[in-house]
């Protein structure tokens, strides 16, 4: 009799396993349902206050950084640029990349505009007050912090290294960390855009 239960149990377990393996894995991290919708109030490259409504209807990538960043920010923006180049033209044209500077002290709108223009037309620089930046960070469970300035006044900033992907409705879909290559990112983005009209 216990034997029968065992068989039923193992059958059930294998059925469950079969169900969960139906969907192919993403290269990035699936955050649908884990992370909230995109909502923000920030300052754009012209110094105007903008909200997520300004880019409503566009699928968006969001990345936090600062223009004096020595490594992660330029590398990541270059990787995003390389990934976007692989997308079919219609998909590429639709994408917007939000580069949110967490260093408003040094990154004024003019400097942001100059910096983002080096990484393609789709990159939009944003920044904000500490209050606005903190609200956005808390929403996505990320943070940033400032190091001690050296003799020249230069200081490091710790920030999230993740690229967040949102669909046209502004719903959080994917998170790419530093291990994801441009090819993998392009494949995921193409699939995300194809699955959500």
């Amino acid at each position, binding site marked *: 009799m216990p034997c029968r239960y065992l068989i039923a149990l193992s059958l059930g377990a294998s059925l469950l396993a079969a169900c969960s393996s139906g969907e192919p894995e993403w290269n990035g991290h699936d955050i649908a349902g884990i992370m909230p919708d995109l909502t923000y109030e920030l300052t754009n490259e012209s110094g105007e206050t903008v909200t997520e409504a300004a880019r409503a209807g566009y699928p968006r990538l969001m990345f936090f950084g600062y223009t004096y960043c020595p490594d992660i920010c330029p590398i990541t923006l270059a990787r995003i640029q390389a990934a976007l180049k692989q997308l079919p033209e219609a998909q590429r044209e639709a994408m917007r990349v939000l580069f949110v500077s967490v260093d408003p002290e040094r990154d004024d709108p003019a400097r942001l505009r100059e910096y983002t223009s080096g990484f393609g037309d789709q990159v939009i620089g944003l920044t904000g007050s500490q209050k606005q930046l903190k609200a956005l960070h808390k929403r996505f*469970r990320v943070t940033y912090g400032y*190091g001690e300035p050296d003799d020249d006044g230069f200081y490091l900033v710790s920030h999230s290294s993740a690229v967040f992907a949102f669909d046209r409705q502004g719903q959080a879909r994917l998170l790419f960390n530093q291990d994801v290559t441009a090819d993998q990112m392009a494949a995921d983005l193409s699939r995300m855009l194809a699955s959500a009209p």
Partner: protein
Amino acid sequence: MTDWAFLLLPWETQWWLIALFALTAWCYGRGLVRRRRWRDVPAALAFGIGLSSMYVVMQTGVDYYAQYMFFIHRIQHLILHHLGPFLIALSMPSAILAAGAPGWLRRLGALIVESPPIRLLYRILQQPFIAGFLFVGLIFYWLTPSIHFDAMLSARLYWLMNLSMAVDGLLFWWFMLDPRPPGATPVTRGIGLRVLVLWAVMVPQIALGAWIYLNPNVVFDVYAVCGRAWPVSPLLDQQLGGLVTWIPAAMMSVISTLILIRFIFNHERRPTVSDAAPQSATS
């Protein structure tokens, strides 16, 4: 000025948790006043430090740093799972809490504690092998890199993680530091068996801590993904976290062993339960 407010106020306010801590502290304080016994003072100190340390790591600015710095997260769990519950269990607060609790709460508590399903569940969870397995298993589960990643990203999982550590910590140390002679209750186990469990949980904790500390690669990349509270080398953060998992956690087993040995002397000085009431002796 704002920094003080940031440090003292919760990062993510959980009203029910604040209410639970406040109710417990209020009952305990009232119980102390009603009993007016000098020998309650050391226990009250242990209970007070244990309870407030658990509150501080969950409902003050410390929680923010624990979310964005791996080694502070490890200190948070050391307090939630080891130090806080250890001190609370050591203080044996049941009598004082019962003395201070209002009548309806005492009756409700008794109703819950004495209900057959809860008693059965408690006996299962306090079975030595299961208690030890849960204690170590939860540490390993939440430190599995992919699970840790999700837990730090999802607010719901994050609270589930911290609460499971706190509840399991209370269960484990309650089981471990029961001062009654073995056999006094069905879950009061022999000292030798308890020491065995303590040492059995110490070895995997040392192995895990050492693995984190000595790892040349960053295993917990979620702190890079989410950003750190201040700029620090990811490997240094991980090494500090490994040390916290390794040394103080293992030390707790050693300290508890000494306390258990002291229990043996206490038990030898008074008649054992089996002499006084042979029918209740089970082991």
